[in-house]
């Protein structure tokens, strides 16, 4: 059954709840901040070793704000890759945001431009996971944009602070990069993934995506990530249609 959503910006009620929503969004993002913290610090500490200047490292966190893409860029800078290739790889690594954006469209399209632009700029894996749950499971008549903004700003301020701490720490204790703090990213993402494993179809999506990500790992410019994601989505749909009762 096709469902057409209204496109015109409409007023939903926020009222005096705006600040409360904002705080809840930030609060619900807190566990993910703990995971992003070592990851951001490690980014800052690794920057100098890979030949990125202090200002450019901070600038990248301020203007790009994409953790995994920034890490990959750092590795490529260290390997002496030309900047257009790094930009192309960034694009592919971040294509997953288009899928996130598509998922959030029913709510984003009800907002005005001054909300759409910042919420899209601050879209991350973490804020997406937090916000989409609230949009889908929260009160349908309530406007959750302040909640979404609270999550976004919590992630952004945390990331900037961590980058700065990492830059400062990297100058004083260069050996900090050897402690394996980069495990924070997989640990956080595993924590985000587990609640989705509710039925056979979700399991299929996760297992197929994981398998393909290994098989397609050698593809250039990290294209394997998108191949794996699409294979996982297709696998999930296939299993869902096979086991209707499982839904």
């Amino acid at each position, binding site marked *: 059954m096709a469902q057409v959503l209204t496109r015109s910006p409409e007023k939903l009620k926020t009222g005096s709840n705006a600040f409360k929503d904002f705080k809840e969004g930030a609060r619900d993002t807190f566990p993910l901040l703990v995971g992003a913290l070592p990851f951001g610090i490690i980014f800052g500490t690794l920057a100098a070793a890979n030949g990125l200047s202090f200002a450019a490292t901070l600038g990248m966190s301020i203007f790009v704000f994409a953790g995994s893409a920034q890490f990959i860029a750092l590795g490529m800078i260290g390997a002496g890759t030309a900047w257009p290739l790094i930009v192309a790889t960034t694009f592919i690594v971040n294509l997953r945001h288009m899928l996130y954006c598509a998922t959030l469209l029913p709510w984003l399209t009800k907002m005005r431009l001054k909300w759409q632009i910042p919420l899209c700029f601050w879209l991350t894996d973490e804020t997406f996971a937090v916000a989409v749950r609230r949009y889908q499971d929260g009160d349908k008549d309530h406007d959750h944009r302040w909640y979404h903004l609270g999550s976004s700003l919590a992630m952004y301020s945390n990331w900037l602070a961590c980058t700065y701490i990492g830059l400062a720490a990297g100058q004083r204790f260069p050996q900090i990069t050897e402690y394996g703090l980069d495990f924070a990213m997989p640990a956080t993402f595993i924590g985000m993934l587990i609640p*989705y494993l509710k039925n056979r179809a979700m399991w299929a999506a996760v297992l197929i995506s994981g398998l393909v990500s290994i098989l397609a790992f050698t593809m250039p410019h990290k294209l394997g990530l998108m191949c794996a994601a699409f294979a996982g989505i297709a696998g999930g749909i296939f299993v869902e249609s096979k086991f209707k009762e499982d839904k």
Partner: protein
Amino acid sequence: MNEIYLIAGMMAVTFFTRYALVPLSGKMTFSKRLERVLSYVPPAVLSAIIVPSVMIPDGANINLTLDNAYLVGAIITCIAGWLTKNLLATIVLGMTGFLLYQWILMG
């Protein structure tokens, strides 16, 4: 200055992936079917990021042995997630387990 081109380029393509569908969406309709497809996006993407980062920790060779602290750490994190059903506890226990195991490995 190359760093400026690099950051401007990365910023442009990243913002594009996060925003481009919004102005286009007026021409799209959302079917129930598409919504179902999109529900698989987060787990599939997360899995595609997690699996290589723990099974290919050096970015070149698949390592499925107990020498791979990332893999063992990931298993510990999964168990912690399964038992606690709590995001913060999962991340903290997973990190702690990883760091301890790595410390044991280094002897």
